[in-house]
């Protein structure tokens, strides 16, 4: 199954190169400088990717032992069949709770320098730990999760081999998960092939969409680079999550987040929308701002925005065409967006281009998880 993920990339690049070599001189098309094809994923020096580590991380990604109740693995909210995220506005919450933000895809998360919608983790390792422990996510506790791993002979063997652990170390579990996630990349989309020189990789509509994206529609002001994200923070005026008006559990979680992430009593009482990046800087200028998401793999990750309030890519284009929206943090809304005056054909072209940022759906079956067994009495 994993071969489907890795192999087509190399194959397509080779085909693309050979086509380019023979056909390109006829009519070379320019490639926009602010965008780029996606290269190999990072291989951090403090957690180098190895096949053994990736295999261990894959098991752990699907293993509910890394949660409070033993039943909320990473894959509970990052479903391989649903774009490696959760197909609702708001992510699945820990039992008895609801979440409060849209689940983001794991695909290509390897390239982000900032994880979570407000960029609160700097690495996939940190993201995995925060998600496993968060009260409305995994609600796990490190000592307990680590103890569970120790009772799995298969994990003892693998942690020993990969990390040299006598007993599995929970930090190493997060490192293995991150290593696994760094293999969930897609670098062979039509867009990438086009950017590497194959003029035929995009159709006419997609090419027009690309021109709009980098020109009239202004998308590339923020959606730039190989990830189509500058990883900065903006308030677009996305309307607040509508579930806060109708769902008691969502109301509870919203207040919990205000409380847990630390705002003043006055702001705790007042806010009715997600303050986003403000939680990290505590600067009012950052209210309602969220990190620009990558547009890769978005064909499979509906609904969109930090709170899932836009159902389709067409809705997203309409939203920007109208110059964004309104929320209670209007003072911080970015000046970079304004009504675009796109006609229906242009909107369709933009959607067509955005879809070229996704290749085939990446799927993976849940691996068989190794069983726990009693620990033999120690020999010492």
């Amino acid at each position, binding site marked *: 199954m994993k071969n489907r993920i890795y192999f087509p990339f190399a194959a397509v690049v080779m085909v693309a190169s050979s086509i380019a070599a023979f056909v390109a001189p006829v009519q070379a098309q320019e490639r926009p400088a602010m965008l780029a094809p996606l290269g190999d994923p990072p291989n951090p020096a403090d957690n180098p990717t190895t096949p053994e580590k990736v295999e261990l991380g894959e098991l752990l990604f699907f293993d*509910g032992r890394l*949660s*409070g*109740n*033993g*039943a909320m693995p990473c894959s509970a909210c990052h479903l391989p069949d649903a774009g490696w995220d959760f197909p609702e506005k708001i992510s699945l919450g*820990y*039992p*008895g*709770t609801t979440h409060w933000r849209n689940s983001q895809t794991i695909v290509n998360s390897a390239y982000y320098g900032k994880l979570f919608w407000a960029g609160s983790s700097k690495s996939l390792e940190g993201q995995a730990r925060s998600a496993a422990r968060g*009260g*409305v996510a995994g*609600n*796990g*506790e490190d*000592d*307990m999760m*680590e*103890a*569970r791993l*120790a*009772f799995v002979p298969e994990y003892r063997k693998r942690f020993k081999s990969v990390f040299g652990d006598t*007993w599995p170390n929970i930090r190493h579990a997060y490192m293995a998960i991150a290593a696994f996630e760094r293999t969930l990349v897609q670098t062979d989309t039509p867009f990438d092939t086009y950017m590497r020189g194959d003029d035929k990789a995009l159709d006419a509509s997609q090419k027009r969409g690309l021109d709009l994206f980098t020109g009239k529609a202004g998308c590339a002001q923020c959606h730039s680079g190989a990830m189509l994200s500058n990883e900065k923070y903006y308030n677009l005026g996305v309307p607040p999550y509508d579930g*806060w*008006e*109708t*769902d*008691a*559990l969502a*109301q*509870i*979680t*919203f*207040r*919990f987040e*205000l*409380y*847990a992430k630390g705002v003043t009593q006055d702001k*705790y*009482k*007042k*806010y*009715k929308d997600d303050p986003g990046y403000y939680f990290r800087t505590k600067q009012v200028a950052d209210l309602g701002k969220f990190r620009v998401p990558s547009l890769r793999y978005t064909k499979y990750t509906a609904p969109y925005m930090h709170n899932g309030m836009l159902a389709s890519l067409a809705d997203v284009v309409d939203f920007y065409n109208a110059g964004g929206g309104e929320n209670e943090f209007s003072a911080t809304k970015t000046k970079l967006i304004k009504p675009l005056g796109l006609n229906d054909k242009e909107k369709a072209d933009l959607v067509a281009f955005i879809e070229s940022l996704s290749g085939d759906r990446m799927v993976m079956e849940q691996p068989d998880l190794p069983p*726990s*067994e*009693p*620990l033999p*009495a*120690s020999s*010492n």
Partner: protein
Amino acid sequence: MARVPIGQNLFKSRGALLAPIMVALMGTMSVPANADDFGPVKSMEVNRDLADLGKRLFYDERLSGDTSLACATCHQPDKAFTDGKALSDAYTGSSHFRNTPTLANVGQRAAWFHDGRLGTNLNDVTRESITETYFMNMDMRIMQERLKQDPVYVEMFEKAGKGTPSNGGARSAIQEFLKSITSSGAPFDTGDLSASAKAGFELFKGKASCAECHTGPRFTDDQPHNTGVPENPDIWSEPDRHVTFVTYAKFMGVENYMNVRRDLGAYVRDHRQESAGKFMTPTLRELTYTAPYMHNGTMASLADVVEFYNKGGGNSANKDKRLHPLNLTDEEKSNLVDFLTSLSGNSFDVPSYNPGEIDTDYPVIVDWRQQKN
């Protein structure tokens, strides 16, 4: 001296707060020089509104992380707030390595949990029980917001003088409810004792030496002792229980915790080798409701417990030196069991301790935007 008149012990409180009252009354009351330390359990002073709030919280499953268990899930009123299991169930996905202790007269303990690891107050006991990952695994910040979402709580907190629902208010309310749990109506207290039970009481104080540790109205010295209770092998053969033990041992700073195959008990309090295997003397109140017995539930009946002590306890290098074979006759053993049985009184499964079904649905705040959070 099987019957203990209430009047003799009424003011012999063990509570420091009542000491000045006791001293003041000593002048007017006649206290026999050789008065026994045994007698009815005095009730604690309780704020009724606050205790009522605590009672509802005690039975509310929304106080656990996944809303699947309440305090009362393991502390069941018809079993004197135990669960009838040798080893408790613990939080979803876990199993515990200890027997659920009774909450009868729990406010009067000097230290809590079988190992006595909390010696401060019921506020800390409540916090520990709600937040600990293998108990209720609750992030109390979420708990507070759940409580605020329930208009019944908003009203009850206000009435109890605690303002807006808060974690601190919830803990003090549960604490108040716990303080209200008082034994009453035991034949030993009412004087309705059989001849066998009376004989048992004499053995208890005399030949069987039980009163060496089981003293006072609650029949405990509130100290840890090692009686050599055998290990419960299920702790080490069931990974879910052993995992919980490891989690606990790690948190308590036990060295080499992966290789420990023994419940170290009060060792976690002071990390002294001589404390290993000591457990808090349990109360003997309400025993007929609380089988099986001992910190790990390894004894099914009171007869088993008496037999255990008749043999001088179990095997342990650190065993309390006062334990020795008792050479009790069958009749004496039976007398002792009858006496122990006479220390159980009225059921706690009554409205003052059990609110019955509570509504745990949350209403939506309909004009959410207009309301302050």
